[in-house]
């Protein structure tokens, strides 16, 4: 029987020494060079600018809607530029992911307050036909995840963030990130297998 990290379990997380030389799955927007002194302002701005394509990609996958995604990116950029004075070093890109992730969480909370919610019905069962079937399945599978799990999964597999960076973005211990990832993967597998055991049906 394998050991399994409890949610938020620090033991396992601490036991694992994370390999910092990990090669990222994607590298847009990844600028590790931090300019100092008088270049700081323009460096901040250009770091933000460089991150835009990756932010759009993350937001699109997070919301599965192009309009909503770009709204989120726009809000993120406005907030980032306004709060530049609050940015005390570190990686601009991670900071932007943090803002976007939080804005989306707020957005979902406000949606959840409304009586009308997305209904996940029988017609959402994986569609095994047609050329678009694969990408539609991915969208539905992502939609079946709890928000925090979806964000963790996308930050790792799509944006190439390290576990440690995701922990920072989500404001949780690394062990929690790992358990979110494990649950996300298990849920998606169950969804694609057509079991969908934990789908919430809202009446």
């Amino acid at each position, binding site marked *: 029987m*394998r050991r399994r990290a409890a949610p938020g379990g620090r033991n396992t997380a601490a036991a694992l*020494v994370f390999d910092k030389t990990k090669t990222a799955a994607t590298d*847009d927007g990844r600028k590790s060079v931090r300019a100092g002194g008088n270049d700081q302002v323009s460096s901040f701005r250009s770091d933000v600018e460089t991150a835009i394509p990756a932010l*759009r990609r993350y937001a699109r996958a997070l919301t599965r809607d192009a309009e909503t995604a770009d709204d989120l990116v726009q809000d993120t950029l406005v907030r980032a530029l306004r709060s530049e004075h609050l940015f005390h070093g570190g990686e601009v890109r991670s900071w932007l992911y943090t803002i976007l992730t939080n804005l989306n969480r707020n957005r979902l909370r406000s949606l959840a307050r409304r009586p009308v919610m997305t209904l996940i019905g029988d017609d959402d069962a994986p569609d095994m036909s047609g050329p678009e079937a694969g990408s539609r399945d991915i969208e539905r599978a992502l939609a079946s995840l709890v928000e925090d799990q979806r964000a963790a999964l996308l930050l790792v597999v799509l944006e190439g963030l390290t576990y440690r960076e995701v922990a920072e973005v989500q404001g949780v211990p690394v062990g929690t990130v790992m358990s979110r990832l494990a649950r996300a993967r298990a849920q*998606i597998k169950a969804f694609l297998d057509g079991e969908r055991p934990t789908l919430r049906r809202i009446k």
Partner: protein
Amino acid sequence: MTDPDVPVTEDELHAHVDGELPADRRAAVEAWLATHPDDMARVAGWRALADSIRARYGAVASEPIPARLNLRQIERAGRSWRGIAAVAAIVAFAVGGLAGWTARGAIGPMPAATFTADALDAYKVYVVEVRHPVEVPGSEQAHLTQWLSKRVGYQLRIPDLEPVGLKLVGGRLLPGPHGAAAFFMYESKSGERFTLYSTRTNGPDTSWRYNADGAVGALSWADSDVAYVVSGEANRDRLHKVAETVYAQLERPPVR
């Protein structure tokens, strides 16, 4: 510690797929996978999932970036609150189809446009706020009225919107186009939120105007140098009903 006989954990399998595995455990994990086909299949499944997510969304990063995400444009607008208001106002009025816009020339945004856009901005910012939507709660209505009246420079009255199913959440002070603005939030049982925004304006009195900016709608009017904007979701009938209730109470002399 780097004993290859230490059993492989599920966390390590995930770390392996995500390139997070320490170098000294790689051999052990690979050896484990070679002899555990079920785990090998799971790992392959996770890799395939990552591939399909990247295949589905990876190309988004290469799409041309829409103009509204242009940093220079955002910076220009972000330098002042008014800038954003002006941009938003142009959008709002383009939707509203206001004929007077061009006739007045492009000296600057019309006062009505500015306060409406400010109000819509405020609505969008605070309506999603769950924990701190207001500075002063509705339970302290007397204090709220006194404080905000003092700041905006005229006597405010907080309408009672219970007849249309809305309870006062509270209020806050905001910057307006000409000094301070008062901002009140109302909420229904089902969580639908409406806001009333009021500030001084140097523009002419106007009759009701409806503006929609995406999913958000606003009904605004100006009366004796004071502007009012009622904002909510862009459901015109519902918004009208709420605004009518506000209007009727503001026009009526105070009972007390």
